[in-house]
């Protein structure tokens, strides 16, 4: 979490009053007052999301419209490809893709979702990065594109096995949507942007709604007995079990997409030999790592004992060696696994699945095994 500058007042999302009314315990997060949990508590909120449906307020995230000055979507897509290693040009209308804004050094400025809405691109970026991302887009793409932050919209995530049935009561055509389909849809009577995606490893949806209707829409979802409001605490444990990166923790400007094991998100067309190979910030380093491998890798780690191993814990090759080989970047307890889970970086030689490493926790060395992620199988409707 980011330290809060005492001089800057915390911002509130359009659902602030609803959070208080539902027993939300509010904490500062990325400049916003956000609910870390509701009355059910992190454990129940987590398990409820995997068993039924959870409603998350992610309105603090940035929503940005990127439109080519020419009016041609391809121009916006090709422009954005200067800043991300993903194939945006071939992204079909109504589809969304996970991407990273890269730095000249090959590091990651932010991770984001990019959707093709037909005549423009729709981006969802992290709350803590959104001002910097907008400035970056302006500085790099203003010649070709207009960049319009949608600050008057809220963003709700409805996640879990019952999310589709709940949303279908208010939105036509939901059952036809596949994972990562995205586009404008009427939800209730409101003009929303709906994507079948999320950050919990569950099937689910993210719904961008005009701020003035956000509370009404959230109440419609919460009126369904299968939906509980979920705080940031369970959002974190859900995404950790799903093996998903948290920006500022698992990825940042010092980690490349290849080191972060995100190369699955880089399409062939942008790699060496592809029709639009390179041409993005940091391409030299990232393409070289795609070809030759990276010196270190982000891996899933399962502690062998019951003690959670948390962010910042140093990693060692054995129980005694003074040589620090890496560190935990996210770690905690996985309620669905009923066991501790973690992620961290290790030199590639130590990063094979099943390898044992040790973390230092309160002066003791605890054994962990490198594990495949997701820790909990995802249930996306592909």
């Amino acid at each position, binding site marked *: 979490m980011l330290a809060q500058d005492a001089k800057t007042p915390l911002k509130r999302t359009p659902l602030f009053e609803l959070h208080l009314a539902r027993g939300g315990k509010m904490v500062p997060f990325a400049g916003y007052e956000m609910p870390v949990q509701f009355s059910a*508590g992190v*454990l129940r909120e*987590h398990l409820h999301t995997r068993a039924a449906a959870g409603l998350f307020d992610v309105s603090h995230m940035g929503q940005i419209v990127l439109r080519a000055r020419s009016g041609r979507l391809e121009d916006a897509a090709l422009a954005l490809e200067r800043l991300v290693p993903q194939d945006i040009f071939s992204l079909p209308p109504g589809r969304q893709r996970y991407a990273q804004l890269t730095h000249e050094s090959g590091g990651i400025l932010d991770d984001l979702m990019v959707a093709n809405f037909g005549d423009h691109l729709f981006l969802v970026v992290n709350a803590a990065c959104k001002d910097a991302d907008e400035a970056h887009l302006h500085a790099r793409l203003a010649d070709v594109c207009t960049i319009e932050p949608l600050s008057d919209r809220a963003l709700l995530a409805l996640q879990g096995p019952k999310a589709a049935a709940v949303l279908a009561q208010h939105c036509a055509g939901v059952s036809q949507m596949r994972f990562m389909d995205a586009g404008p849809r009427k939800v209730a009577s409101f003009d929303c942007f709906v994507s079948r995606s999320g950050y919990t490893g569950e099937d689910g949806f993210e719904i961008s709604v005009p701020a003035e209707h956000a509370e009404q829409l959230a109440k419609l979802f919460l009126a369904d007995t299968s939906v509980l409001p979920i705080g940031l605490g369970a959002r974190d*444990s859900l995404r950790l079990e799903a093996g998903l990166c948290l920006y500022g923790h698992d990825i940042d400007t010092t980690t490349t997409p290849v080191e972060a094991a995100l190369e699955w998100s880089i399409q062939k067309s942008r790699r060496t030999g592809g029709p639009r190979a390179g041409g993005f910030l940091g391409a030299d380093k990232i393409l070289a790592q795609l070809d030759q491998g990276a010196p270190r890798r982000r891996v899933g780690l399962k502690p062998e004992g019951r003690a959670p191993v*948390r962010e910042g814990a140093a990693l060692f090759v054995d129980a005694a060696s003074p040589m620090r080989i890496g560190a935990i970047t996210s770690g905690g*307890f996985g309620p669905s696994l009923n066991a501790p889970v973690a992620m961290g970086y290790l030199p590639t030689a130590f990063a094979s699945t099943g390898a044992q490493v040790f973390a230092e926790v*309160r002066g003791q060395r605890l054994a962990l095994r490198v594990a495949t992620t997701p820790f909990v199988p995802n249930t996306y409707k592909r």
Partner: protein
Amino acid sequence: MTTLFTSDHEWLRIEGDVATVGITDYAQSQLGDVVFVELPKVGRSLKKAEAAAVVESVKAASDVYAPITGQVLEVNEAVTAEPALVNSDAAGKAWFFKMKIADKSELGGLMDEAAYKAHTA
């Protein structure tokens, strides 16, 4: 039998020269769902205010400090086996450890129940 409290939200039940130590119901409600508890080794000599045990919720780890100086006589394995006991019965079955009171004068610095209630109000 007297029950005393610390400002760090621990309770001590005093029986003769033995203190049974746990965390308060207020503390467990603030921590949230407890998923891991680590207790001191039997026989360990604890100094007042030294980290003696660890309680972890889904979100965070918290130290439990020795409320007074003394040697650990017994630990409650039921709590390490079933950490959720801390949420369901913090003041009872989820006691953490028993210690031999080294210096009874240290008890004078602790709160009674009324004072602790005022402290958390």
